[in-house]
């Protein structure tokens, strides 16, 4: 396992990781998404306060949702703030346009390929802030950068705020399929068919998405992942109750199939999923092996663990890609944002050299 030992930092500890990566690189690129999420400028601001200015800041333009006036205003404000920060640090700000295409799911792969072709030099440190980037985009972006693991110091930062996560609502999530770059043979039809094992990483909400994905995959086995340990020790129980009908009436999950992973440590989830994949591969080898398919319905921090496991194991990740996002009415947003913690994961480069 590539990340059997790992490097991560939290809060003020992130700065140490950033400085170390900067010291090991010829230059530094910071990648972030220009969206309505109030956390958009936080990681960049913290980075600029702790480190020398990056060589470039890459801003990925994200779709707007004009029917939601509050998100449009927030996106404009975030963009202005990012521009101010970059200007104050004299860091060149380059934009990556959001691709228009026939298939919404292709956008992430198109952005990833463009980043690699045109924007990320070798021997750079690359810090990707996924806080404001949707899952179906940051998976292929990070996956593509991991393909260049021997060339770059890759770090991921996410501004963790569960309360803020709960007020950002996904809309129109009804298009199940593999995340681009992470299909890994899921849709092959001309070869032998393998046993399918689905591992949904459960979180609050997403009931209809889970149902759609289950119908889409028609798995032979389901191993739901629950967050434990967690800050709220009853959170896993609450999730089981919330998804009771799907888990026990519709799917009839075996109680022994539940998998547990630390809510706050994506590397723990990475290990759990990798071990599960290897166990099934070993047990079902005489039957042609197994395809372990993941979907993530929990925090972005935890989802990076699923990304690592899937990228390394070449196993599929599926999602029901939303058509839009909205911010629920939630009181004082500024106050909610104050309770944000930065989490940083170092995925490739210096710590992993043999």
């Amino acid at each position, binding site marked *: 396992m590539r990340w059997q030992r790992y490097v991560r930092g939290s809060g003020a500890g992130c700065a140490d990781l950033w400085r170390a990566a900067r010291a090991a690189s010829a230059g530094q690129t910071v990648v972030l998404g220009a969206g309505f999420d109030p956390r958009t400028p936080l990681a960049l601001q913290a980075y600029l306060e702790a480190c020398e200015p990056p060589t470039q800041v890459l801003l990925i333009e994200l779709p707007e949702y004009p029917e939601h006036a509050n998100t449009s205003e927030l996106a404009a404000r975030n963009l202005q703030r990012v521009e101010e920060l970059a200007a104050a640090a004299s860091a060149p700000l380059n934009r990556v346009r959001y691709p228009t295409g*026939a*298939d919404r799911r292709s956008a992430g792969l198109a952005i990833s390929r463009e980043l690699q*072709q045109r924007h990320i030099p070798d021997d750079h440190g690359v810090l990707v802030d996924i806080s404001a980037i949707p899952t179906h985009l940051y998976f292929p972006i990070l996956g593509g950068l991991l393909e260049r693991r021997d060339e770059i110091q890759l770090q991921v930062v996410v501004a963790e705020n569960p309360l803020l996560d709960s007020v950002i609502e996904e*809309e*129109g999530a009804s298009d199940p399929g593999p995340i681009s770059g992470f299909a890994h043979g899921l849709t*092959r039809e*001309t070869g032998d068919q393998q046993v399918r094992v689905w591992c949904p990483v459960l979180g609050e909400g997403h009931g209809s998405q889970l149902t759609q994905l289950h119908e889409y995959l028609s798995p032979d086995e389901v191993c739901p992942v629950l967050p434990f340990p967690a800050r709220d020790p009853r959170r896993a129980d609450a999730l089981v109750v919330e998804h009771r009908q799907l888990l026990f009436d519709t799917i*009839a999950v075996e109680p022994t199939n539940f998998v547990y992973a630390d809510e706050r440590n994506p590397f723990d989830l990475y290990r759990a999923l990798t071990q599960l994949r290897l166990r099934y591969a070993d047990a079902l080898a005489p039957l042609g092996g197994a395809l372990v398919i993941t979907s993530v319905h929990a925090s972005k921090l935890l989802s990076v663990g699923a990304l690592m496991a899937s990228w390394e194991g070449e196993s599929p990740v599926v999602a029901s890609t939303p058509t839009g996002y909205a911010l*629920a009415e939630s009181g004082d947003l500024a106050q909610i944002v104050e309770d944000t913690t930065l989490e940083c994961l170092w995925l490739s480069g210096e710590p992993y050299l043999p």
Partner: protein
Amino acid sequence: MRAYTNPFRLRASEQQRDNRAFVRNFGAGVLDLLPNEIWDRLFVIRSAPGGGKTSLMRVFTLDSLMTIDARRDDFEPLVTRLTDLGVLDSRGIRTFGVMLRLDRDYRALVDVGAPPEAAVRLFFRLLDARIMAGTIRTALQLRRLRYPADAGRVRFVPEPEGADEASRVGEILGGLTGSGIQSTSHDAEAEIIHLLDALRPVDWESGGSGHNDLHALRLLSLAEIYVDDLPLGMRPLVLLDDGHELAPEQREALLDRLSKRDLRVARWYSERLQALAPSQLMVGSAKGRDYAVLDLEQAARTAARQVHGRRFRFEKLLLEIGNLRAARALERAEEGDNKFSDLLEVDHASRIGDRASEIFSTLNSEIDDIAGGDARYSAWRSEARAAQGFAGAVRIQELAILIARDRRRPMQELFPFALGEDEAARLSSSTLRDAAELFVCNRFRVPYYLGPEILARLGSQNIEQFLSLAGDLFEQILGLITLGKKPDLSATQQDRILRSASDAFWKQIPERVPNGRDVQTLALAIARLGAEETYRPTAPYAPGVTGTAITMSDRDRLLDDRLRKAIPGGERLYDALASAIAFNVISADLDVSVKADQYMVLYLNRLLLPRFMLPLGRGGFREKPVELLAQWLRDARTELDLAQSPLEMGR
């Protein structure tokens, strides 16, 4: 305590793996909807999500047919219909379906950077690979051989008159042997999927040159399938599901190829019904001559028709499906012979419970107020005073509506005469009685949504919806059985469960439906309009209004990119309406004639109606200009309103 499983919760995907469960629960009556011309030309099936198009196709796949053929006695209704269709005969299976889903990878080919024509050629190449691989797999399965290991035992033998053409297309597909074709198909798929999924930049030309036609269909039209040098003796049926997932240019190119009349292989294609798309399915092709179409919901909503001597009603079919599903669970759990629908029958007299005197007192005093002491209504008022039970309360309300109508009549007699029973009978109607029942239940919070017929009507949008509601009710029944009680659901219980389901359906709209909040706003506006018209004291549109309509010419303006921009809020309305229809929140009936004009009528999904306390009939709508519908979106209510309010009407 014994645990029971809810058979309505075994959903599509579970049944995808358990063919016997799928076949057992499939309502054979749906096959009566098939037109005659489904074998010699393209057959298109359209329905809303959950409408049953995939299940209908799946019945014709080999897995389902083998299950049916192996247990003919268990599946007699299906066997009869499939025999009539020529799919089965006394020797066994004569037609086998090869089913492919069009939501896998194809659309993304448009975004690989290839010019449009090249992208379509890649699309055909991938589809050819999968059709051939699927056909070989199915042929091997028929002979209980393994795929891909035994692919070499399959051959495609050209018929004499098409031998040259068959050889030509065979060469493109990898030859005329199963192993050659399987290997070529496998490589083609791998190359194209690599193009779609590689995280590093790739050149689209690495996907190969592509195919300029669907060669698989041509080969299947010109060659017979042999396994171990013996003819299979069965005809293939190519089933292409979810065509709406394709990019427009892909869909157009595919339908153009599928509609060619020189193809002899049977081919069916399904797509989601889109009422906001140009109504012509294919430019340049003639419906009837080049293709046949089945609109599942339209056919189901049409009045009962005689097909092969069998009457067909969709709601009756739904109850049949419900009873079939629940039969085994009830046998095991209850050891009785109650059908699921029987357990939903209630004693209507019990609906008003111990509130009879309060209700009658209120209704009678209202009649006195409306009648205003006029002797014309004295007989009706006497009848009202003598009324009893729930039926009596409804009768009083009905009389109140009749009096209100009579009071507003424009021509007043010089010497008014007393209205008697005959007159009441003449003026009454079943729709008026339905309206009266709704008024009573709404005003006095008496259970309204109950009984098997109401369940079938609530679920009649599509089978998935019906199964979900039936599952909710059955959950309660199982609870009663577990506690050792009689499993009859009371009126109050049923009403509560169905209203909760309605509420849950409403709340899921933003999560499930693109432009969900706008869809909710539109639905809320239609519901408000419906409530205002439904609950007028004279009930002019009995049993009520549950929809709105725009003229077909307004629909045309919405469809036209240029004209739509000229409508303030037109784009937003178009997006919301398209989503609402595509995701079953609103259904659309086209070309409905009213007086001198044609309309697109927009009805709320029946499952939303309990939330707004609206009736379940499908008759009433009020037509509005398209500009007003766009205005409704611009005047959107706050999110708090959308989340909280069932409409308060008549209370």
